[in-house]
């Protein structure tokens, strides 16, 4: 566990250092101050990424063993199909109607379809497996 936490800290410091270096390189004014500010901002996120990668990961021997991971895989693959279908239908409607939608709205729509589809499919798979 100590080794994992050491890796988490190292990854966090590495990400923080990379962000600071980038800020120092690209900042047109006060590169030193920019590097310090960006480093301070990036540090918690860097440590969080390190924790996710090094500490929170499940043991390799149990990866894919759970029913939950099977339900999630089924839900995500079904959601991918739903997105393709929804995108095709939406494209047909937009083309016929001659609408000009902003990209932000389109991306939000795609995101909502994925979330709704994956959540519903996961809940259905869970209910089928656990229910009577």
């Amino acid at each position, binding site marked *: 566990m100590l080794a994992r936490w050491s890796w988490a800290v190292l990854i966090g410091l590495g990400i923080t250092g990379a962000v600071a270096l980038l800020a120092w390189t690209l900042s047109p004014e006060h590169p030193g101050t920019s590097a310090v500010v960006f480093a301070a901002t990036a540090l918690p996120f860097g440590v969080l990424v390190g924790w996710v990668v090094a500490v929170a990961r499940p*043991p390799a*021997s*149990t990866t*894919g*063993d*759970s*029913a*939950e991971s*099977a339900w999630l895989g089924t839900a995500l693959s079904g959601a991918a199909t739903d997105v393709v279908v929804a995108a095709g239908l939406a494209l047909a409607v937009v083309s016929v109607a001659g609408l000009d939608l902003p990209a932000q709205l389109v991306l939000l729509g795609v995101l909502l379809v994925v979330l709704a589809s994956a959540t519903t499919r996961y809940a259905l798979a*869970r209910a*089928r*497996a*656990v229910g009577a």
Partner: protein
Amino acid sequence: MRNSVRARRLAAGWSQARLAELLGVTRLTVISIEKERFDPSLPLAFRISSVFDAPIEEIFDPEGAAP
């Protein structure tokens, strides 16, 4: 795939939570296996076999499995 996990667990006097703890999986996974709605991976099947001290082919029966 048919299996005798539930019968063996009850014979051992374990709860689903206890078996899940022994196998290193969630209770939902144990429930799904007992209801024969989830076929365990090969490593998990070996752990089940080890926990019940019985060969895999005695615990799992391919009868009724998809071809």
